Each structure stands twice: as structure tokens, then as C-alpha cells.
């Protein structure tokens, strides 16, 4: 608390009692004398209830901070820390709600069966492939979108809306829209391709074509998020830098590679890390587009976790799968935190 404030603290008390008498009507009558307007009030009246209340609310910073942060950390404890501990514990249990047996400890058995489960490896490979394909693709597309959106047009809202609305609509909606776009008979993608090739493509009969359709859809949806993050970064680059570069004879490309890209690095890091983490959890779009088919060719790790947990009620195995996903994601998070703390 600044010095002038503590100096005024005595008068402060009295004024609060008089000025807010109405608001504190629930308090005992000892506020009465002060409320009648004898100001400045004499210090001896100090131990009145308003003062005690003030002491609670005006407690020193450390105590107040603890009170204010308590709900956040309580929630994180109950909804994040405890569940993660329980998840790790459950992954060492045989805990199937359909078996009728009580949960019992089986050591690393779930992890052993996971390592020999071909569908787990398919799901893991698909998840990593989706990440490897869609993160760079969304980054490039998002960068292009952001550069255009950052141009000083007189009317900016149409371009902005075309970034914001795809960002805001649910992934599950986008999956359905993707399914309709790539539909083999009446889909608009095949209708456009009709002009360049004679036979229609039956996207969802082939594993890798389905996979590509999903990757394209994910790229479309997530490039809007990347673009918004990069647009925010672009807006922080001072115009003087561009002007100085122009004066030095730098052309458009030189300015882009020597000014824009280096200045944009922190935003790119943020966008890439968040995209990597969310793409490791890819669920909504494959579920709504292909339901994992044909066969298991578009099943992701998150879908496999959901299937084992919710459909098969095999909580032990589902937990082991989730622990693997958690570890992969933790690695990425650690990398991200180091990036963030390295920034000034």
C-alpha cells in the first residue's frame, strides 16, 4: 500500500463508516455515531465492527492473494490434479465395469497389452500423422490468411469475420460439413474436381483418401485459429521497422523474411504449440466425418480412449492409453513452457 494511503488510514476508517452506513445496515448499531456525520471521527472508536470487517477485506496482500487465488487452485486441484493422479493409479488396475469383478491391481499389465495391441499402434500412428500433416499445413495457411487480414483495407470486417467464424464454430459441426463436402455423389469437392478429371473420387471408401479428407478439413478449421494468433502478432510489429527496411532498399520479400518472420516468432511458437497439443487430441472431426472408418484407418488415440472407456467401460485400459497421450502432450508442454519463459 502506498505511503499516502497508510497515512490516511485513520481518517479513511471513519469516512468509510459514514459514507457507507447504508450499505452496512446489517452491522450493529455502533456504526450509528459515525454515520451521523461526526467527521473526522476520533480514533478511540476504532474497535467497531466496520473496522473488523475492513481488516478481513483489507488484509495484507499475501493473505488477500491467497483468498483470491483459492477458488482457482481448489478447482484445479479437484478437476485436474486429483483426476490425473487417479488416472495414473487406474492405469495399473484391472477395472472393467462390464466384468463384474471389483477393480484390482495388475501392475503394468495394461501397458503390456497396449504395446502388443495393433489398434493402439494404428491410433497412435494416425494421431502423430495428423499432427505432422495438419500443424505445418495450418501454420502456412494461417500465415497467408493473417498476412492478408493485416493489410490496411478500408473495410476490414469481412476479412476478419472470415477468420473468426470458422474459429468459433464447433469442430463437430466442421466434421459434418466436411463429410458433406467430400460426399462422393453430391459433394461439392467432387463437383469441382469433375472439371479436371473424368471419374469421381469415392473419398470414404479408401483409408488414405479418408485420412486426407480429414486432414484437409482439420487444416481448414484450425488455420483460422493460427491466423488469429498470428494476426495479433503482426499488429504488434511497429510500422517504423518496415519503413526503415524500405529506406534501406528492402523489397516485399526481403521485408517479409527479415522483419515480419523474425518479429512473428513468438506468436508462431504459441500457435504451433497449441495446435500440436490440440491435434494430439484430435477427436471431433474424425468421429463426425468417418467414425474412424473405413476399418480403423482414421481412428485416433482420443477416439480409441473414448471407445475403451465409454463404449467398452474398460477403465483400466482406457487409463493406460490416456497416460500415453498425457506423456506425449507433457513433452510438448514442457517445450512450450521453456519457450515462454525464454521470452523477455
Amino acid at each position, binding site marked *: 500500500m502506498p505511503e499516502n494511503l497508510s497515512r490516511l488510514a485513520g481518517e479513511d476508517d471513519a469516512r468509510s463508516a459514514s459514507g457507507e452506513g447504508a450499505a452496512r445496515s446489517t452491522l450493529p448499531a455502533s456504526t450509528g455515531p459515525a454515520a451521523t456525520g461526526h467527521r473526522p471521527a476520533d480514533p478511540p472508536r476504532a474497535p467497531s465492527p466496520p473496522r473488523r470487517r475492513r481488516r478481513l477485506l483489507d488484509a495484507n496482500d499475501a493473505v488477500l492473494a491467497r483468498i483470491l487465488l483459492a477458488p482457482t487452485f481448489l478447482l484445479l486441484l479437484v478437476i485436474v490434479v486429483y483426476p490425473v493422479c487417479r488416472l495414473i493409479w487406474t492405469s495399473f488396475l484391472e477395472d472393467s465395469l462390464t466384468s463384474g469383478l471389483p477393480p484390482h491391481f495388475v501392475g503394468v499389465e495394461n501397458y503390456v497389452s497396449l504395446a502388443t495391441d495393433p489398434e493402439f499402434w494404428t491410433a497412435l500412428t494416425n494421431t502423430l500423422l495428423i499432427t505432422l500433416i495438419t500443424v505445418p499445413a495450418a501454420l502456412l495457411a494461417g500465415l497467408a490468411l493473417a498476412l492478408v487480414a493485416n493489410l490496411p483495407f478500408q473495410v476490414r470486417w469481412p476479412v476478419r469475420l472470415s*477468420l473468426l467464424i470458422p474459429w468459433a464454430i464447433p469442430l463437430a459441426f466442421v466434421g459434418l460439413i466436411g463429410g458433406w463436402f467430400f460426399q462422393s455423389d453430391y459433394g461439392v469437392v467432387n463437383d469441382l474436381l469433375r472439371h479436371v478429371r473424368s471419374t469421381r473420387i469415392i473419398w470414404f471408401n479408401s483409408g488414405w483418401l479418408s485420412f486426407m479428407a480429414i486432414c484437409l478439413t482439420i487444416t481448414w478449421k484450425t488455420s483460422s485459429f493460427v491466423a488469429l494468433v498470428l494476426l495479433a502478432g503482426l499488429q504488434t510489429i511497429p510500422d517504423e521497422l518496415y519503413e526503415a527496411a524500405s529506406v534501406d532498399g528492402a523489397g516485399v520479400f526481403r521485408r517479409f523474411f527479415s522483419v515480419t518472420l523474425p518479429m512473428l516468432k513468438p506468436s508462431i511458437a504459441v500457435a504451433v504449440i497449441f495446435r500440436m497439443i490440440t491435434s494430439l*487430441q484430435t477427436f471431433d472431426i474424425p468421429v463426425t466425418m468417418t467414425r474412424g472408418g473405413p476399418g480403423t484407418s482414421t481412428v485416433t488415440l482420443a477416439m480409441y480412449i473414448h471407445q475403451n472407456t465409454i463404449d467398452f467401460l474398460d477403465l483400466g485400459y482406457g487409463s493406460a492409453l490416456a497416460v500415453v497421450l498425457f506423456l506425449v502432450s507433457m513433452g510438448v508442454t514442457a517445450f512450450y513452457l521453456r519457450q515462454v519463459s525464454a521470452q523477455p
Partner: protein
Amino acid sequence: MKMPGPAALRRFAAFAVIVNGLFPLFWIFLTSLKTEAELTRIPITWLPHAPTLENYVRAFHDQPLAIYLFNSLAVALISTALTLFIATLAAYALARLEIGYKGLALGAIIAVSTFPLVTLLVPLFQTMRTLGLLNTYAALVLPYTVLSLPVCTLVLVSFFQSIPIDLENAAMIDGCSRVGALFRIVVPLSAPGVFTAGLLAFVNSWDEFLLALSFNSATSMRTLPVGITLYQGEFAFPWPVISAALVVGIVPVAALIVMFQQRVISGLTAGGVKG
């Protein structure tokens, strides 16, 4: 800034961005106006020949779309309010109070913002099942609050820091307590920030699919993204009806975005945002 490239090229680039972003949604809208007969014509028609609203009637009739909408709205509003309240308290502590573990607290909050929600699926399912909370709003409100809490806290911290501290000091000299100053001075003055954080929290909740699908499977408790996947049968895809339902689901969020686009952009600038 000097305008790069010729004007025609810039205008074309802007047009391409708009088509890329809005064509898929426009196409869904066109589909929702077509009859099933028109839809199964080859080559496909672009503009509907005989526009009809029947698909919208069917969208509300084939599935309890109004209930899904209501549930989504209820869950999103409750979790947004809860998130804002908790994030306001935390953000004030982080923005204004001298505390030694500020870096640690911020680090923990950022770490949670990168937390994979999927890993909470199993343990939260167990807990909600034990507590009998499956198929209630609480099963979704609590995780969604955690989902949005980091972003909202970061947005609010940056807005609170932009409020001159003198205003608070003046309020406290006038007899306001510190918490009173928070809710009477800081929060009203950072209303745009609070609103932005609220929008982000709302969109997060409105969009979530995995937990909504897993925890609330009863018809009366389903949210919109889950309910909207149920129009399709094993082999039947009533695309015009699905499209109509999608339009109904997109309009509320799109309206929010259209009205408050500037706030959303500033919010995305203020806090590294998850998408």
C-alpha cells in the same frame, strides 16, 4: 504502412480469404434450402431451384433440437459466469498484489491451458459416475470452467494491468475496501476485458464435444454438437435436414462474433489463446 502489391492483387487476396472462410458455411445454408429430390440430382445444383424451409421444420421435429440448444446455452452460460467470477479474483491477485509465488502461479495456469482434456475423460467419468452427476449440467460445467479458466485469467490480468492504479487508490482513500475497489472500480473499468474473456469462455463451452458426448448421453441432457450428429442413421444421411440443424447451431455463435468481433480480436491479442 506502405501497401504491398497492386490494389487488384490485394483485393483478390481478400476475396480469396473471404471465400475460404465463409463459402463452406454459405454452402451449408444453400443445402438447407434444397429439397431432398434436388439434392440427389447430378450434376449438383448450386443455387436452390425451389427454396424451402421444410428442412428447418424437420430439424426441430426429427430431433429435440430446441432442447439441445437450451442445454448448450445453459451449460455455456453457467460455466461462463463461474469462470468469469473465479478468473476475476485470481487475475486481480496476479495483476495487483505483491506475492512471491506469482511466477509459479502464472506458470501453473499456463500449464493447465496446455492440458489435454482427453486425459480427464476416464477419471472424471469415474468421479461423475460415483457422485451420480452423469447426465447433469454439473458434469460439463465444472470441466468447462477449468477449460476456460487459464485463458480468461490471462486476458483479465492484462486488462487489469491497464487500469491506472491511482483510481483504486482514490477509491480506497474514499473508504472502499480492496475487494470493494476490485468490484466497483477495476471490473467496471475493464468491462471490455471481462466481456472478451466471457466470449472466449462461451465459445469454448459451446464447442466442446468429447465430454459432452461421454457424460451426457440422455436425450434431455445432450448439448447441440452431440445432438446434431444424431440425424444420420447407419446408412442414411438426410443432408438437407442436417444442414438446417447446422445453420440453427451456427447462427447464435456467428451473431455473437458479428456483434463483438473487435472485442474477440483484442481478447485473442491479450491472452495466448487455445483453439
